[in-house]
């Protein structure tokens, strides 16, 4: 059997979903027999070098770079999975959606209790920096997403079962305990 190619990305997330992959413990040895990783923070490959079978997205979109990266993944992946609450519904970063963007930036860079070095009162505005979106959006509101794995983080068993089902093209068995939103 040819090895399936996997790519992963962490957008507006905390990297916890990627960490949860490591919770599959010794099954990681089985996984590496079944798949090879392409563009991913795990192997630090920056650009796609071949067509990818399964793309895994952690985190929602909070800035223009996230949107660009997500579209890049959609173009290069046959199947795209939203992994975790942030990718599915914006998650913790989306808690700022009720606060105007200017107020968020002001609190972070000017008025926050830990701001000490920004004497000139500069808000980040260099064109090299990604533009922050007005509100954090779930991935499926930007591109078509094929599968969703909820959890904060998704349980390792859920990630393993989903990947195994996709690789082996078998239907997935979902026990009650593995679908959780927290």
């Amino acid at each position, binding site marked *: 059997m040819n090895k399936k190619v996997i790519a992963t990305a962490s957008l507006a997330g905390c990297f916890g979903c990627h960490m949860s992959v490591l919770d599959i413990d010794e099954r990681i040895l089985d996984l590496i027999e079944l798949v090879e990783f392409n563009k991913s923070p795990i192997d630090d490959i920056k650009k796609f070098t071949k067509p990818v079978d399964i793309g895994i997205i952690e985190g929602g979109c909070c800035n223009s770079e996230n949107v660009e990266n997500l579209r890049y993944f959609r173009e290069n992946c046959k199947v795209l999975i939203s992994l975790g*609450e942030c990718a599915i519904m914006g998650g913790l970063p989306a808690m700022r959606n009720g606060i105007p963007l200017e107020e968020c930036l002001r609190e972070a860079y000017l008025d926050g209790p830990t701001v000490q070095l920004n004497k000139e009162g500069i808000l980040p505005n260099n064109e090299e920096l990604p533009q922050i979106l007005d509100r954090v959006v779930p991935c499926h*509101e930007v591109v078509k997403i094929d599968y969703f794995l909820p959890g904060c983080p998704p349980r390792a068993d859920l990630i393993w079962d989903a990947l195994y089902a996709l690789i082996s093209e078998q239907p997935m068995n979902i026990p009650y305990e593995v679908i*959780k939103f927290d």
Partner: protein
Amino acid sequence: MENQIKIVIDGREITAEKGKTILEIARENGIFIPTLCHFKGADPKANCRVCTIKINNRMMTSCTTPAADGMEIENETPELNDIRKSIIELLFVCGNHFCPTCEKSGDCELQALAYRYQMMVPRFPYDFPQKAVDSSSPKILKEQNRCISCKRCIKTIKDEKGRHYFAFKNRGNKLEVVLDPDMGMEISDKLAQIAMKNCPVGSIIYKGKGFDQPIGTRKYDKTPIGG
């Protein structure tokens, strides 16, 4: 036998007393019909529609429909379960249900129903409402963005004179369940805790205590709602 009626739920014939609602009869016979706004002991109002069933091919709410002799009722069908799931999804997108940060997560009935119906993602776009949070009471935090306007708190939380602590405010899409500002100042710890418990979501939070039960030991962590 004048007092007895016969109804059929999903092909199962049930004999029951006259005058009871379909939901009551189903519960007595161990048949699960999902509910959110229904609260045992309080008048049913059919706000949430999640208990929708099909009687003689018509959609009805089981919490308010009295059972009548000869009714043929559909309950656990793919069509009805999908309608229920869509109602749950709508409730999720209409509010800010950030489960990972919610004190009620694991004990939340809305979340438990989403688990039961395997809601991976809502089919509707998220609204991200911006309602103000009321933290004026020393005992209760009222998080309006999580409220599903089920009226359970309005119906069940009263003082010894029968005055309600909670009430509806505004109309239409501005409708909110609010805590009376004066009564909220004097609410007892016990009543505040009951209010939190009666709320099916995390809209009423008893202040000073949260996340006290470890993940894995909460009400719906291992056991689905309705068994």
